[in-house]
């Protein structure tokens, strides 16, 4: 989740009243924000990732004023007609087709408000704008350029301006290659023959979205009028980001002037700060929340969440959704806001009436019995990771690594594949315990995975039990006795044992067990070659048994059994 630095006194000022930090923490906790840390006036907040409008003090304060009943209902942000025009050239269509903008005047910046607007821009870029790929924002001093702008794709060699933070003019390729922002975000546009560029009627470059602004429109402490450019690949998102930024500046007293964006013969006025409408059905809201709210309750709750109400009926409410709410996709989103306004701490937990009968998977029941028997046979249960290395499951074991599920982006070669048998993990366990008193008898009951074309997801997971004994003296007969005892006591009696060869075991001291001519287990004495590579200094005997195959487990998958219903 995104984190945010907020000044406590600035936040109180925006809310319009002083409040104790504990109360503030409690209120924030109940509205998808959490106070992570407080030091002096500085608060570090963690904010939910579905509310880009809460990524600044202004947005949080707007929300809190509602929940504190200090100011409820929809805020109507005014937009005056302005002189900003953006001509969008066809050439950006395949690169970064959309742009929105605005001019916000009469801003009196303080340290807090500057920090918040910069932080908002940065956090939006990181989260909602998907690291500038979908949307990016440029903030400019409106007084340094004309407001007749062109947004067009220009060949990198033809682009020439001094980017923000650089000492000299550069061309497009140089900016991508040798500025820090160019190296970070250049990949987004690098492969296009032309780069998107925003410039005024005098040829001043405002920005090379989504990389960097020009130095011409640099915002300084004296700046009072801002010009915004918001570009991207998704028109809806571009407009939401513009709305969020503009409404945030309006919260600080800015006067918003609209921009005309011209796509050929189509004109769009941005920002559009009119609310959108959505309908909320009273009974479905009550059904979801388990409450018995009346229409008047719902209206009051909606207003605490800063919604407006267009009209009401017995059945429900037509809601006015604020222009900065990018997260409202469905009625369910409004219902959650009702619950937040009602207070999650006031919702009474309750249990449903219908009683059902629990059931376990067959393999879970069998595993439990197998584990009981293994413990009775004197083995200690261990738990290894399913992720492991090819080196362990085949290299050291002398076996082939066919049919192993392999990860393409491992962070460590130790955890790069899924194990397809249990023994390697058990031997590795022994090698970590060479100097612990013997005998050492351990087992694991766990999943192994292997590639299989027979199922839609191309792999099968099997539950197996593996066991090893390590002692000064241990032989084939010891492990055979344990496995026979396990099979007999788990209710199997028609198994067959035959000699096999297996590269991990000593020749002539290894066998497999078949049931209904299907291989279900192998057992034997581990080859000294393996003991040497695992640095195990005492003999080891081992078995591994496939539970589903050995005991013919098939998972039944039926509907739920209901015992009573009211």
């Amino acid at each position, binding site marked *: 989740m995104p984190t945010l630095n907020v000044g406590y006194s600035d936040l109180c000022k925006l809310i319009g009243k002083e409040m104790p930090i504990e109360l503030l923490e409690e209120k924030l*906790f109940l509205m998808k924000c959490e106070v992570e840390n407080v030091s002096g006036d500085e608060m570090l907040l963690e904010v939910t990732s579905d509310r880009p409008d809460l990524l600044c003090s202004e947005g949080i304060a707007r929300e809190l004023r509602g929940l504190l009943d200090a100011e409820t209902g929809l805020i109507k942000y005014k937009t005056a007609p302005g002189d900003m025009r953006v001509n969008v050239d066809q050439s950006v269509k395949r690169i970064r087709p959309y742009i929105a903008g605005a001019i916000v005047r009469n801003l009196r910046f303080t340290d807090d408000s500057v920090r918040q607007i910069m932080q908002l821009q940065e956090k939006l870029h990181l989260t909602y704008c998907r690291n500038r790929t979908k949307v990016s924002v440029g903030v400019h001093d409106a007084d340094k350029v004309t407001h007749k702008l062109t947004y067009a794709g220009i060949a990198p060699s033809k682009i020439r301006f001094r980017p923000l933070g650089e000492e000299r003019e550069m061309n497009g390729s140089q900016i991508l290659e040798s500025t820090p922002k160019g190296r970070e975000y250049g990949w987004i546009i690098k492969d296009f023959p032309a780069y998107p560029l925003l410039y005024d009627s005098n040829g001043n470059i405002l920005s090379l979205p989504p990389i960097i602004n020009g130095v011409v429109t640099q915002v300084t402490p004296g700046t009072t009028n801002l010009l915004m450019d918001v570009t991207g690949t998704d028109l809806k998102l571009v407009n939401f980001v513009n709305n969020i930024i503009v409404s945030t500046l309006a919260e600080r007293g800015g006067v918003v002037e609209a921009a005309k964006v011209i796509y050929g013969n189509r004109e769009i006025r941005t920002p559009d700060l009119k609310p959108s409408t959505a309908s909320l059905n009273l009974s479905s809201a009550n059904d979801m929340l388990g409450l018995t709210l009346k229409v008047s309750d719902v209206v009051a709750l909606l207003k605490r969440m800063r919604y407006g109400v267009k009209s009401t009926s017995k059945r429900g409410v037509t809601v006015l959704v604020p222009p900065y709410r990018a997260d409202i996709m469905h009625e369910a989103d409004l219902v959650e806001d009702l619950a937040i306004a009602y207070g999650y701490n006031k919702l009474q937990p309750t249990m449903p009436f219908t009683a059902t009968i629990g059931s376990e998977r067959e393999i879970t029941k069998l595993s439990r019995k197998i584990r009981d028997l293994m413990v009775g*046979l004197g083995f200690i249960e261990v738990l290894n990771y*399913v*992720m492991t290395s090819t080196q362990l499951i085949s290299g050291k074991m002398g076996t082939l690594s066919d049919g192993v*599920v392999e990860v393409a982006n*491992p*962070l460590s070669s130790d955890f790069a594949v899924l194990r397809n048998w249990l023994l390697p993990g058990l031997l590795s366990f022994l090698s970590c315990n060479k100097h612990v008193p013997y005998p050492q008898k351990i087992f694991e009951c766990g999943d192994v995975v292997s590639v299989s074309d027979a199922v839609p997801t*191309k792999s099968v*997971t099997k539950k197996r039990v593996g066991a090893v004994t390590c002692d000064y003296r241990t032989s084939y007969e010891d492990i055979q006795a344990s496995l026979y005892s396990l099979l007999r006591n788990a209710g199997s009696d028609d198994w067959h044992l035959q000699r096999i060869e297996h590269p991990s075991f000593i020749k002539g001291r290894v066998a497999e067990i078949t049931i209904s001519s299907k291989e279900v287990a192998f057992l034997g004495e581990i080859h000294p070659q393996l003991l040497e590579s695992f640095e195990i200094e005492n003999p080891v005997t081992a078995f591994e048994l496939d539970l589903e195959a050995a005991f013919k487990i098939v998972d039944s998958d039926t509907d739920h059994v209901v015992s009573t219903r009211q």
Partner: protein
Amino acid sequence: MVQLNQEGTSYAQLGLPESRLVKAVLSLGGEASLDEAISKAHLGEDLIPIVLGWIRRKRLAEIQRREGLIYIRSSGQVQQDPDESTLRVIYEKGEVSIEELPPQMKETVSRLKSRNLLELLDKVDREVELTSKGLQTQELETKTAKTITALTAEIITTGEWRDVELRQYDVTASPPTIYPGKKNAYVEFMEEARRILLTMGFAEHEGPLVEAEFWNFDVLFQAQDHPAREIHDSYILRNPISADLDDEELVERVRRTHENGWKTGSTGWGYKWNQKIAERLILRTQTTAVSMRYLSSHKNPPVKMFCLSKVFRPDVLDSKHSMEFTQLEGIVGDRGINLRHLLGFLETFASVMRLGKIRFKPGYFPFTEPSVESFIKHPTLGWVEFVGAGMFRPEVLKPLGIDFPVIAWGIGFDRLAMIALGVNDIRDLHSKRLEWLREKPIRW
């Protein structure tokens, strides 16, 4: 008589520390720093002064000091250490009288005794003669009471036990340690949770660990450009790569829901959905994928399912992070199920698991709305995140053909286990230390 104490027994099994160190030096090429050699020989640091002392005295290797470090140098073979031979002889016999030992070993016995590896069992021969009074008493007794140590089958069946006296033991002496076969504490903790869910009427279910993104993300209405789907947050595969999506109608409904909301009442995400991305195989990142599969085949209410199983996310294994961990997923679907029932189930589960006080806040998950996060009060850690939960979005349920509400939660089970088992390092849930597993009590 002498016998080995615990330390002596362990040296008889593993070798004396000084010879283990010299062996380690030889395996490191004949010269090594003390630190390297100690770690290679698996010796504790507390043994360093003793080991160095004996290496000097027995002239087993050269000890050199260079630049503040100690180096050990040894050439050639390790001679059989007579001390070790003696230890083995005593170990195999259990109890030995010093007289029985060959003469060359007697000398080593005193050295081992001085190293505190032996226990002397004093057996003093005393000659005792009855006095005349004793003789008289004996004549008066009809039977002679013979004292014996071991009660045998013969003594019992012949009734001889009536005529003998069984020697008294020092019942306060320490017995040998037994390491029983034992279940793993973490697995047992999972069993406890499972038991509770069964009593609450839940059916257990499981799905594939290697899962199609379709079930792990798309059915859950997570947009295809959602950050959780990037390679930093899910394990993608080199083999196998791509799944078959066999339910074409479901695929179509999911596609439309993502693109424009289909019939769910939603706006949808408004992008072009790509089936190739949905077919990609990954290691399951959330057990919610299992809930989706369950719902797709259980369309009659009520449904109550749990899944206690593994999920995977790219992370480097350390004391707090792991690349694979366990989630406890639960869903309840029925007509009339609501948000307060969700809180009810979470509160009940926390109370039966004895997790203490619980509190709720609004949260965000792409597939639930309303969403809930809940915290439990830990006596020392304070409020600890316990579970993420919510009501599945209509965009999730409608394409699956579910027309009743479903509440769902996912608990990070390892965190819960660490608190319950008193473990501070997440790796200890998969401990490779046999001694720790042997000693760890199974109650918590």
